[in-house]
C-alpha cells in the first residue's frame, strides 16, 4: 500500500519540528550571543552580536584585567591620600576599599576547579564502589541480596529536601561544619551516597548482559573472583562504566542544595552553582560575564555528552537518572 502524503500535512509536520527546535534552542542561542559581547552591548536587540568579542571569556579566565581591576588605580590614589592621616581615620576607608575589591572579585576558575574536584572525586569513588557492589548483585547469591537491592532503589524516593535537616544536624554533631575543607569533605560523602544508587542500578543491569560462560572459563583456569572482576568484567564493560561516571559527575556538577548548606560561609570553597548564584545576586553581576560563565560551565558536560551520546541516551532510558 503506497501512501501519498498531502503537502499540508508535510508542511505542518516540518512546522512542528521547526517550532520545537526554536522552543528548545532559544535560551541557549541568547546565552551564546550575549557571552560574545561587550558589557555595553549586552541588551542590543538582534541575536547576532554586532561587535563580537571574547572579552568576557578572557576576563573570566584571568587572561585580561577587567575594567574594574583598572579602576583600582583610583583606589591606589586614595590610598596615597590617606597615608598621612591618623590610623583611626584610615581604617574605615581601607575597609571600604577591601569590601569593594571583594565584591568585584569573580573567581570563576576557583569555582570551576572546586566543582571539578568534588564532582570528579565523588563520582570516581562512587563508580569504584559500584563496580564491586553491582557485580555482587548480578552474579553472587548471598542471603539478604534482595533486601539490599530494594533498599538501594528506595533511595530514589527520598529527595534531598527530606535529608537536608537531619544530614546537617549529623554533620554538625560530628564536627564537620567548622571550616571550608570540612564542608567539602561532607559534600564529597553526600554526593557519593547520592550517586551510588544510579551507578549500582545501571552497572548491575549491564553486568547481567555479559555471558557468564566467559567468567566460568576463567574460574576453571584458576582465576579468583576478584581477578574475574578486574581482568574480565571491567574491560568488557568499560563504555558502561564511563557512562555511569558521567551521570554521577553531572549530579555533583549540578548540585545546589547541599552545597549551599555546607559551604555558604566559605567563598574560597564555592562550587559553580553556589558561586555563580552568589555573584548573580551581588553587585558584580554583569550579563556578558554571567553568560560566558554559563557557557563554560556547560562545556564540560556537553562535550562529555556529545562524545558518549550513543551510550548515554541508552543509559537514560535504562533508568540511569536520579534527581
Amino acid at each position, binding site marked *: *500500500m503506497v501512501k501519498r502524503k498531502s503537502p499540508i500535512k508535510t508542511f505542518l509536520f516540518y512546522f512542528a*519540528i521547526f517550532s*520545537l*527546535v526554536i*522552543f*528548545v534552542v*532559544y*535560551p541557549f542561542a*541568547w*546565552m551564546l550571543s*550575549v557571552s560574545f559581547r561587550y558589557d555595553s552591548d549586552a541588551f542590543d536587540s538582534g541575536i547576532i552580536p554586532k561587535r563580537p568579542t571574547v572579552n568576557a571569556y578572557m576576563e573570566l579566565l584571568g587572561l585580561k584585567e577587567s575594567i574594574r581591576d583598572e579602576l583600582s588605580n583610583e583606589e591606589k590614589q586614595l590610598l596615597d591620600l590617606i597615608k598621612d592621616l591618623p590610623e583611626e581615620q584610615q581604617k574605615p576607608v581601607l575597609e571600604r576599599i577591601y569590601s569593594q575589591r571583594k565584591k568585584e572579585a569573580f573567581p570563576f576558575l576557583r569555582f570551576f576547579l572546586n566543582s571539578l574536584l568534588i564532582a570528579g572525586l565523588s563520582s570516581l569513588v562512587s563508580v569504584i*564502589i559500584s563496580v564491586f*557492589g553491582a557485580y*555482587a548483585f548480578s552474579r*553472587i*547469591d*548471598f*542471603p539478604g*541480596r534482595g533486601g*539490599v537491592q530494594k*533498599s*538501594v532503589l528506595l*533511595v530514589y*524516593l*527520598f*529527595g534531598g*529536601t527530606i535529608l*537536608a*535537616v*537531619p544530614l*546537617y*544536624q*549529623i554533620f*554538625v554533631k560530628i564536627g564537620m561544619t567548622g571550616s571550608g575543607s570540612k564542608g567539602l569533605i561532607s559534600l564529597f*560523602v553526600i554526593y*557519593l*551516597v547520592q550517586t*551510588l*544508587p544510579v551507578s549500582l542500578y545501571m552497572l548491575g543491569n549491564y553486568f547481567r548482559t555479559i555471558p557468564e560462560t566467559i567468567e566460568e572459563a576463567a574460574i576453571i583456569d584458576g582465576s579468583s573472583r576478584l581477578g574475574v572482576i578486574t581482568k574480565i568484567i571491567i574491560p568488557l564493560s568499560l563504555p558502561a562504566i564511563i557512562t555511569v561516571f558521567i551521570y554521577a559527575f*553531572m549530579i555533583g556538577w*549540578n548540585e*545546589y542544595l547541599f552545597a*549551599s548548606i555546607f559551604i555558604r560561609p566559605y567563598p574560597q570553597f564555592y562550587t*559553580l*552553582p553556589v558561586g*555563580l*548564584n552568589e555573584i*548573580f545576586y551581588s553587585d558584580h553581576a554583569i*550579563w556578558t560575564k*554571567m553568560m560566558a560563565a*554559563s*557557557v563554560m*560551565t*556547560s562545556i564540560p*558536560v556537553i562535550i562529555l*555528552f556529545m562524545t558518549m551520546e550513543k551510550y548515554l*541516551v541508552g543509559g*537514560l*532510558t535504562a533508568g540511569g537518572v536520579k*534527581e
Partner: protein
Amino acid sequence: MTFLNRYSPLKKKEAIFGWKLVSPTVILISVLILYPVFYNIYLSFFDVSLSIGSENKFVGLSNYINILKDSTFWRSFGTTVAFTLITVIGSILLGLGVALLMNKKFFGRTLVRALLLLPYVTPLIAIVFSWKYVLLPIDGPLTKFLTLFGFSSGMDIINDPNNSFIVVSIFNIWRNFPFIYLMILSKLQAINEDYYEAAEIDGANSWQKFLHITLPELYFVIGSVALLRGIWNFYKFDEVYLMSKFANTLPIYIYEKAFTGVPQQGVAAAIATLLFLFMMVIIGYYVRKVLKW
C-alpha cells in the same frame, strides 16, 4: 554467621565474598540515607538547638500543631501539589507529542535529536541564567517578543509573586520533557508493526490506531515516568529556588525555615516528615491502582 551453616562450604565462601563486595554500599546508604530519614522524624519532636553544647528541647507534637495551624504552610502545600500536577501532566503531553514526531524519519533528525537533549543535560545554573536574561523586564528579548501579544514590558515576570509560579512550572516542563520523550520513544520503537498492519486491514484511521494500539502499549511507560517525575517534582528544590525565590513551594519553605533567618530546624524536620508521609501514601495508592503491581 550461624545462619550461613545451611550452606555448603563453597556457597558459604561465596556468600561472605558477596557481603564483602556490597558492604561499603550498605554502610554508606544506611548511615547517610536510612538513618537520617528516621533521625528526621526524631528531630521533628524537638526544638532543635543550633549552638553546640546546648541540648535539644523535647516539645512533643507542638511543631506539628504549629505547622498545621500556619496558613503559609497550607498555601505552600497547595502550590506544591499544583506545581507537581501541572509539570507532570505538561511534560508528559509535550514528551508524548515530541516522541510521536521524532518517531518519523525526516531530514536532519539526528541533529534535532541531539538538540532536544540540551535542556535536560546542560547544567542547571547555566540555563537558569539564560532564562532570567530572556525574561528580564524591558530589555529581555522574550519579554520584548511577548509585548507583541499585549504583555506589559515593565513587568518582572520571574520575581512577581503572582506569576513566578507559572514561569517556574513552564521552566520545569521545558527542562524535563526530554527525559520523558526519550523514555516514550524507546517504547514506541519497540511496538510490533504487525499490530498497525492488522488495524489498517480492518480499516482503522491514524487516530483510531493511536487510541487503540499506541496508547495502551505506552500505558505502563507513561505511568512509570509520571510516578518518577511526580516524586522528583514534589521534592524539587534547585530548579524552583534558583529560578525564582517567590514560587513558594514546600521544599523552599523547609529550606528557609531550616537555614535562613532564625533557623527552626525542628519545625523544618516536622514539615519534611509530613511531606514524606504524604508522599508515601500517594505512592502506595498510585502503585497499586495505576501501575497495578
